[in-house]
């Protein structure tokens, strides 16, 4: 019983060691690629998403009822909304 419990307790540490050793022992190209990933994700989430890609309906309307009213208006009377 104690043996099983001991093994269960060591699983998180084994997973942690697996990942940390893996990241530490990466080759040069891996570091370059990780840097690119970080830059890419920063541009995507902290520049593009934040400043250029707000959710149009969520930012303009407070609830689903207002959103559906707006979309129905757009679909049935596009001229009014585009003027």
């Amino acid at each position, binding site marked *: 019983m104690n043996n099983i419990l001991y093994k269960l307790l060591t699983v998180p540490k084994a997973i942690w060691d*697996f*990942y940390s*050793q*893996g*990241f530490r*022992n*990466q*080759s040069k*190209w*891996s570091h*370059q*690629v*990780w840097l*690119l*990933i970080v830059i*890419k*994700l920063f*541009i*995507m989430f902290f520049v*593009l*998403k934040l400043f*250029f*890609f*707000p*959710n*149009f*309906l*969520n930012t303009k309307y407070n609830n*689903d009822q207002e*959103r*559906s*009213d707006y*979309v*129905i208006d*757009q*679909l*049935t*009377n*596009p*001229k009014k*909304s*585009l003027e």
Partner: protein
Amino acid sequence: MIENFDLSLVDWSRAQFALTAMYHWIFVPLTLGMAFIIAIMETIYVKTNDPVWKETTKFWMTLFGINFAIGVATGIILEFEFGTNWSNYSWFVGDIFGAPLAIEGIMAFFMESTFIAVMFFGWNKVSKRFHLISTWLVAVGSSLSALWILVANGWMQNPVGMRFNPDTARNEMDNFWDVLFSPTGVNKFLHTISSSYTLAAVFVIGVSSWYLLKKTNVKFAKKSIVVAAVFGLLSSLFTVLTGDNSAREIVRDQPMKFAAVEGLYDGSEGAGLIALGIMSSSGDENDNMKDFSFKIEIPNMLSYMAYMEADAFVPGVNDIIKGYTDNDGEVHPPAKVKMDMGRKAIAALKAYKLAKKTNDELGQKEAQKELEANFKYFGYGYFNDPYDTVPPISMSFYSFHIMVGLGMYFILLFVLCLVYIYKESLVNKKWFLRLAIWSIPLAYIASECGWIVAEMGRQPWVIQDLMPTLAAVSNIDVMSVKITFFLFLFVFTGLLIAEIRIMLKQIKVGPNHGGN
């Protein structure tokens, strides 16, 4: 009603989406196919215990890793665009589009964070068998991940398994299995993944050929070519089969797309297939239906492809506009009738909303009845001219023919590869090795053309017959769309250059010192 839309906004939104989708698609097919090639190589290593196979597996895993890392999350941009640029569409499709994308996101996250980590960090830390299982799970998982995206796309091409709720203006899924197993979605998935496997095989053969030309890592290169050629040949033959199935499905569910990609203006019984054709330039930019100045036609082939009968009637663009009866006896109304029905459906939705506001229950019921009777052609109500429902023909035609032509060329490439390997003369065929290297960009061109066929060929629809692209866009400032278009162009081009540079560097380093 078409005049009420800002067509400049529609065009820029489309251009932006096309740009991001096509850049995203540069990275995806190599990941999908390479994962299987690596899994096969590692299986051989585990079976034979030959260290060359281990080095081979690790080298291709390195290139897979670079491609995967650069491409990862580029698809998220498309989801940003759905919320910002395509809000009418995103609302209208409701959970049908959201559910498969959510499943894909969860699946991709778990796969990427666990099994890819085992693939790269697990050498000598986990058992050979567990490592191999992880590699196969990455391969299968990445294709399954693609399944959900393609199910969502398949639904847009052939909307099934849902009902429209006029209270919320959203489509609600009423049969998940109809959505998942829609013939459009299934064919699209199988055709897309098999063509991606073909691309990866061409990539492996091309890179390996470079080593053979340089006379370095010869043993590794030959082994890689054998695996890639066999895998590529099987994949490309399967791509032909799934493409053939798609043709039969599209002629029924998207006949206008079929007519456009085949350049068929007037249908006939025993229709011929234009194997090769050049459209004449009429000088008129708005002339969508250009004549052919040159064409090689195979008699009766199109009828056979579409219906497995040499004399079957295949409708052309004009037949679809004027209305026709198909080979199963089903009557397809003229576009003008569909436009009338579409206008009735739009008016009924408006009346329903008004009746609801005034608590007029009877009016609501009548409007709902009218809406349901005409909803099938809801999107036609936005058009004034029946010919507005015709996709850009020359682009669809050329993209389709380039894709098919290159697909046939890859089969020949794989066959020649295997013949030369069998005859042990591959190393001496320098012209062939050079051709194999130059085939890599051709594989990407074929793959992108496939998406142009799928997406341009279905225009003007974002959801077939229900929502035209022009009604799907958000009412935002066109300037912001232009700015983000060029931002994406800049960011993605940078990523692509980075990928190519890192990859070329690793290829020059070679398999013996590449490591992971």
